[in-house]
């Protein structure tokens, strides 16, 4: 059970993700975005940051990184694929999740603990939580304002407040199958009481539980 954590130029949360997953008993390894395979990983995380400096649009360049071909193949095969913050933006640009991101409604970079509510437990991120469960996790983004004109998006977590104008107060969105999930706040930064919250654990533990055991020799 290995999770590949992709590093794009400009990613800055990859070590937090690896730390959190290992703390929770998972195996996690960093994979460079130019690699065209995921070293046999059973699941993948696209971490937060500013891949390729957010040039043109957030995630617009990153979606063409060589590693994204394999990420797309895994998503199609039903493997767990999680995008956090900038990783969520990359998944939308890649067309693996519906919608797109624009600047926060008030043009403020939101750096705050926010409360989110689980509204759909049928995904690789929310399977361990009960519906209606409220979690307090940090949000750190300028372009966290998700829009989905087609309304195809499956909103699986909502902000209880409205910190950025995101449509339907969406904080996390899944594909129809529930194996590809994007979340704008950072569960990996809420896994130890000493840093302010442990509420991210239930999400990342659920994610790890969804990772199939390796069948390769």
């Amino acid at each position: 059970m290995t999770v590949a954590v992709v590093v794009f130029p400009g990613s800055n949360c990859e070590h937090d993700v690896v730390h959190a997953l290992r703390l929770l008993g998972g195996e996690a390894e960093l994979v460079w975005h130019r690699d065209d395979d995921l070293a046999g990983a059973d699941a993948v995380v696209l971490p937060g940051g500013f891949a390729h400096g957010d040039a043109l649009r957030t995630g617009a360049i990153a979606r063409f990184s060589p590693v994204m071909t394999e990420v797309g193949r895994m998503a199609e095969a039903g493997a767990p694929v999680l995008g956090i913050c900038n990783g969520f933006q990359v998944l939308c640009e890649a067309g693996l999740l519906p919608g797109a991101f624009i600047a926060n409604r008030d043009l403020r970079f939101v750096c705050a603990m926010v409360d989110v509510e689980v509204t759909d437990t049928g995904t690789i991120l929310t399977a361990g939580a009960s519906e209606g469960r409220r979690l307090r996790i940090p949000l750190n983004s300028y372009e966290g304002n998700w829009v989905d004109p087609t309304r195809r998006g499956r909103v699986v977590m909502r902000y209880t407040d409205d910190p950025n104008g995101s449509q339907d107060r969406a904080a996390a969105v899944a594909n129809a199958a529930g194996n590809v999930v994007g979340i704008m706040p950072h569960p990996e930064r809420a896994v130890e009481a000493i840093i302010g919250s442990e509420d991210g654990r239930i999400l990342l533990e659920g994610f790890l539980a969804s990772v199939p055991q390796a069948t390769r020799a």
Partner: protein
Amino acid sequence: MNVTVTIRRRAVIADPHGATVARALADLGHTGVRSLRIDRTIHLDVDGDDPETVRGQVAAMCEQLLANPVLEDYEITVQP
């Protein structure tokens, strides 16, 4: 050939930067601004001398990278 691409966010999608600039204009006494949207303009110099061929190439660039099909439309002007 010189090509200008205007990337325009669709009217149904919010434009927080445009809304902020519109408020600033009103604060400065410029009343009567009914709507303000900020587009993105991209200038390219592309190999070739057939305008329609170049237009097709730039359209492919827009579809693949320059515009986000969820949010934006694009308009291509090839300079004569």
